[in-house]
């Protein structure tokens, strides 16, 4: 119900084209990389998915995070630009319902993004490497891991976007967070827990223990940010 409502609200804002276009662009990264420099990669003695993600995921995930930040800002800009959010607040729903409706839309388009990218990585594996039996399973696991680690980014980006009536402030803060995330060394577990840095992690570079820690951290951060937003919505009312 609120998912459909929030999806309607982004009509004609370029929201869906941005995610579709961005997804295709990100998916083109491994394809182009292999098309021009496959000789560097095919000789490496590792699983194809592993090789491909090591070579391309930093750039691909950077696309994803930026798209999520921009998408979150577009969503709240439609609310603030002409004051629609004030009308919404006088209707019998909760502001948090709106927030979680938008979360659902952002997660749906993130799944779309990851799906396009996963298909691309899978296609590259099939085309340039020898396919092993566990390729399907590996790809699927990777997709699930990426999706989980994307959640804190989605929640955090939308929380930032919901704070400021001026879209440019939200966008500025979001982009700054993304750049801060790219500067974090990916070996430092604690630092990589920064919500915007989590999506850079790949399954293949970690032991089972570390993976479990990342998954748990992703889930905990998501819940914490959601609680924070609910608190902010409650408190903000008394200052208006």
């Amino acid at each position, binding site marked *: *119900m609120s998912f459909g*409502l929030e999806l*309607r*609200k*982004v*009509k*004609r*804002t370029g929201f869906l084209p941005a995610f579709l276009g961005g997804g295709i662009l990100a998916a083109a990264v491994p394809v182009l990389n292999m098309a021009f420099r496959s000789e560097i990669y095919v000789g490496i003695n590792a699983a194809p998915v592993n090789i491909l993600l090591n070579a391309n995921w930093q750039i691909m995930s950077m696309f994803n995070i930026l798209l999520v930040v921009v998408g979150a800002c577009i969503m709240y800009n*439609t*609310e603030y*630009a*002409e*004051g*629609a*959010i*004030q*009308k*919404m*607040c*006088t*209707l*019998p*729903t*909760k502001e948090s319902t709106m927030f979680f409706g938008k979360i659902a839309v952002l997660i749906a388009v993130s799944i779309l993004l990851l799906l396009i990218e996963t298909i691309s990585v899978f296609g590259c594996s099939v085309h340039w490497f020898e396919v092993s039996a566990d390729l399907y399973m590996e790809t699927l696991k990777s997709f699930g891991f990426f999706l989980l680690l994307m959640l804190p980014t989605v929640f955090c980006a939308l929380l930032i976007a919901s704070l400021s009536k001026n879209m440019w402030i939200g966008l500025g803060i979001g982009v700054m967070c993304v750049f801060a995330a790219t500067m974090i060394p990916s070996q430092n577990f604690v630092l990589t827990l920064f919500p915007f840095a989590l999506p850079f992690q790949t399954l293949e570079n970690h032991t089972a223990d570390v993976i479990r820690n990342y998954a748990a951290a992703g889930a905990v951060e998501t819940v914490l940010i959601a609680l924070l937003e609910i608190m902010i919505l409650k408190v903000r*009312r*008394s200052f*208006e």
Partner: protein
Amino acid sequence: MNIIETQNLTKSYGKFTAVSEINLHVPKGTVYGFLGPNGAGKSTAMKMFLGLTKPTGGAFVINGKQFPGDRVQILKEVGSFIEAPAFYGNLTGEENLDIIRRILGLPKSSVSEALEIVGLTQYRKRLAKKYSLGMKQRLGLAGALIGKPPILILDEPTNGLDPVGIHEIRALIRSLPQQFECTVFVSSHLLSEIELMADNIGILNHGRLLFEGTLDTLKSSAASMGYPTDNLEDTFFALIDADNRQRGGVR
């Protein structure tokens, strides 16, 4: 029976008090005119009714329900339009109303009904951000009227309308209690406008309620205090002026 009632309702922003201990009584099935000059606190009081801003003192009851506990229940029964029209610029007039309709759980036909009432049917497929000022105002009104809620809170609904539009909307507001059995709480700067619509009047100045009652009571009490009564606008100005002078520089 009073459908809206306030008890010493107060809103302060820091040291400044925008609404000061007002006691309003809005009888069911009537049009109540809420009158006051710029900055009197009309919009602030209305925002409190809708939960857009928290009272800092006092309380109010709407249709037997209280904020914040019955917030959702109250908002189901209240159609509102506060200050500037609020809408999604990237959606058409029709799509904007459809969003509101879905949240209120109304039948599909309510959208075209609301468009018809405010005279926007012809422009329903146009993007709301491309509407003229008066059309935006009408869209805001449609958003308040949709589904014919039992209580309407309208903040300066004739702002920005052309003379024909003003006349139409006033006539509409006047007719609402008989047509749909609803109660209308409407604000304005003009006593002459309120006179044409309202059964009861509340006059606000600097956050304080100067007068509450019918037009006739206002006239007779103004006469007894020696204010001019042949022109209502003069009565209003005299009342406000006297109050301002009485406060002196204190504000």
